[in-house]
């Protein structure tokens, strides 16, 4: 599995404008909506669900990475997006460091295995310091997509 299996290419945000955790989550959910992943009427509810989950315990896994997520009935399959915050966001991460790479996952209510596999894939991918460094240096949607897809190398 690659992250490109569940990250929606058109929803990737190479330069997040949000300055807070909640704004970042909203910006990412909006981007998934703009890419046609669910109806406008579900947008606010998804944002609330992801923030609610975040309030139960930060998904900031350290080293500048966070994986905000939620289940939601509006999606038929697991979808995700990736965003890069140039300035970094306060996220109450495990290591206290600001977050620069966010991977948002929205999964259907009844597919826990897909969620666990995607989560594992993100954690595994982000273990590679070289990959994370190159990802953070990427400035376009296409560049990020190629990194997630494994078609861009050189790191």
């Amino acid at each position, binding site marked *: 599995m690659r992250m490109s299996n569940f990250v929606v290419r058109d929803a990737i945000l190479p330069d997040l404008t949000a300055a807070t955790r909640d704004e970042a989550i909203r910006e990412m959910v909006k981007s998934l909506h703009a890419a046609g992943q669910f109806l406008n009427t579900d947008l606010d509810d998804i944002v609330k669900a992801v923030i609610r989950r975040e309030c*139960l*315990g930060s*998904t900031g*896994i350290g080293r500048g990475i966070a*994986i905000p*997520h939620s289940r939601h009935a509006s999606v038929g399959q697991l979808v995700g997006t990736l965003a890069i915050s140039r300035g970094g966001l306060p996220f109450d991460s*495990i290591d206290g460091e600001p977050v620069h790479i966010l991977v948002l996952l929205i999964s259907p209510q009844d597919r*826990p*295995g897909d*969620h*666990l*596999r995607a*989560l*594992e894939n993100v*954690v*595994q991918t982000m*273990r590679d310091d070289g990959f994370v460094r190159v990802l953070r240096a990427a400035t376009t949607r296409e560049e990020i997509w190629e990194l997630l897809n494994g078609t861009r190398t050189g790191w």
Partner: protein
Amino acid sequence: MGTNGPIRRTVTVANPLGLHMRPATQFAQAARGYRSTVAVWNAGTRADGKSALDLIMLVALPGAELVLEVDGEDAADAVGPLYDMLADPGGD
């Protein structure tokens, strides 16, 4: 090191969502409270029980049979509470 070697218990993941990020984080936090080494096995894969990320890498689905392995001076105290966390059906 424990004088009697590691304590091992087989435990079935009862959480309907599997061992997802939150229970993994809570388990790792609890495991770090003991001096013993804590490992969790899923089939042939071993995770350091004190690392939430390691536990996430197990992809422990609902119903998975895990082996909890605790080794050290406080292993006898640790194994019960840690077992219960893995067997917890969870709230979400």
